[in-house]
């Protein structure tokens, strides 16, 4: 495979994690502008583990993911008592705080005569694990997609489980859910924790692929994009956000002739879609329709 294609596919895979993370919160009826914070936390934490503490890749990734999930739960406890617009703005404020903390965060150790580690706004260089261990770009891409497949499986299991129905119910009508004896706030915190975990996997993978992270990548535009993917693709199924990512990165960014106008096309597309299909292309109704058709064919 040629390098450009592998690069684009790896990108689609990694961004899919953060899109899925925003999608999970959309299902419980909350809009988060701040999923990039968990992506960033995991990128830094797992990079520190492999590049500075000499950990292996998998424990490093697991550590980064765990830190991101823990951060998400900690943020969820105070912020999920407030809802709607207020929660969205609180996540935005939190994510910007995380980014600005990384702008001043310095933690370096000397390895082989060179200083390695996050250096404030200059970023975090030399997260070289996959190069030092001779993992090729194609192999790494397969690792990304293996993890993505695992996360997708988890999402489909979730949709069929009791937890999934509770999430959907809270998203449809939190007052009604509360009347059924469901602790809405606790389930929303759980959803945010899981979303932090999913974003964390993507962040760890991202840091090791690019070998260099800097705070300004994790700005609010990344968060808004990940949110928009779910809203374009549809909130009916976990494939929805993936379709959104494929449209944006696979189509708009990768075709050079239109990539200069990407934001104009993408922004307009989101705005128009929100008018005509407020819950995306593959919304719940569309998914049910497809499911019925498939069932009839099998019968």
């Amino acid at each position, binding site marked *: 495979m040629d390098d450009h294609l592998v690069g684009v596919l790896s990108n689609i895979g990694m961004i899919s994690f953060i899109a899925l993370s925003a999608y999970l919160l959309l299902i419980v009826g909350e809009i988060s502008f701040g999923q990039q914070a968990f992506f960033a936390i995991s990128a830094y934490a797992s990079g520190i583990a492999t590049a500075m503490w000499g950990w292996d890749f998998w424990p490093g990734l697991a550590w980064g993911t765990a830190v991101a999930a823990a951060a998400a739960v900690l943020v969820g406890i105070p912020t999920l008592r407030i809802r*709607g617009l207020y929660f969205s*703005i609180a996540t935005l*404020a939190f994510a910007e705080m995380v980014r*600005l903390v990384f702008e*001043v965060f310095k933690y370096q150790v000397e390895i082989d005569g060179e200083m390695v580690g996050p250096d404030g706004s200059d970023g975090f260089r030399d997260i070289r694990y996959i190069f030092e261990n001779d993992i090729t770009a194609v192999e790494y891409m397969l690792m990304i997609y293996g993890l993505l497949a695992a996360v997708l499986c988890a999402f489909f299991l979730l949709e069929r489980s009791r937890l999934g129905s509770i999430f959907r119910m809270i998203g449809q009508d939190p*007052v009604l859910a509360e009347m059924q004896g469901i602790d809405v706030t606790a389930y929303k915190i759980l959803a945010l924790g899981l979303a932090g975990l999913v974003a964390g996997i993507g962040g760890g993978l991202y840091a090791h692929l690019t070998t260099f992270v800097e705070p300004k990548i994790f700005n609010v535009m990344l968060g*808004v994009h990940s*949110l928009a993917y779910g809203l374009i693709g549809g909130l009916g199924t976990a494939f929805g956000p993936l379709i959104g990512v494929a449209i944006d990165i696979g189509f708009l960014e990768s075709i050079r002739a239109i990539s200069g106008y990407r934001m104009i096309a993408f922004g307009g597309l989101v*705005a128009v879609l929100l008018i005509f299909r*407020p819950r995306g292309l593959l919304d719940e109704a569309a998914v049910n329709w497809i499911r019925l058709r498939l069932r009839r064919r099998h019968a």
Partner: protein
Amino acid sequence: MVDFVQNCFDGVMLGSSYALLAIGFTLIFGVMRRLNLSYGPSIMLGAFVGTLVFLEFRAGGLAVAAATVLGAVLVGIYVERLCFWAIRQGAAVASMVSSFAIWMQLEEIVTIAFPDRTYPFPPLTRAQPMDFGPFFFKVENLVMFGCAVALTLGLHLLLYRTRFGLRLRAVAESPDAARYMGINIAAVTFLAFACASAIGGVAGYLIVAQDGQITPLFGLWATFKGLIAMMLGGMGSIPGAILGGLLLGIVEAQSIWYLGTEFRDLCAYALLFLFLVFRPGGLFGHALAERERLALRRV
């Protein structure tokens, strides 16, 4: 102590520009109960229209100001039609996301149309800073503060002394009741949006003229500062917007002095986050009361 007091004065001056931005923001929110995140970018586009008039025709301050306000109003109308009018009542979150998408579009249009990063903008005055004992003030800041006060008074008269203001308040109080009284809600919200955009245009002109230059980043800055100031004061409250802006300005001025410039935005977001968690209604808002009212309406 002299430092602290001088910082407070600086903060009030800085804060009056935030207050100006927050007034337009809060007017839209007060009438529509929706958040227009494209507010800053539409002001930014207006300021670029102003700079174009300045560069092409060597126009004076007044013509540039008029062009800025006109540009901001036209872009504001575009945003209103696409993100607010076209999206059905009640879908506040869809409007918010849609306005974020349009934000990206507007920013991209400006970066393509104006490829250099910074453009000159005619300054407001060339007067020297004034001294009062141990303290000093910039003339532009005093003008800005005066404009903030004048605009607030004007808006107060418009809201409480005219028939249009009465209609506007009726729509803000209860859209359904207003409709039964024969008020054309779409027309009222449209005019309120145009008013807010004009106020935004004035604010934008004053701020950009003080800086003497404009970059596409101004949109992000204006939205965030206006948003934080509005949330601190309480969404939908005009006195709240003024006080919120001043509070934000003072906190920023103190943090620049005592902690350093890199902590300025961090402190602003931390303040916002704390307010959202402990007092989501802001200084003058009624977040909890509003939630209860919505719950009651559902029953």
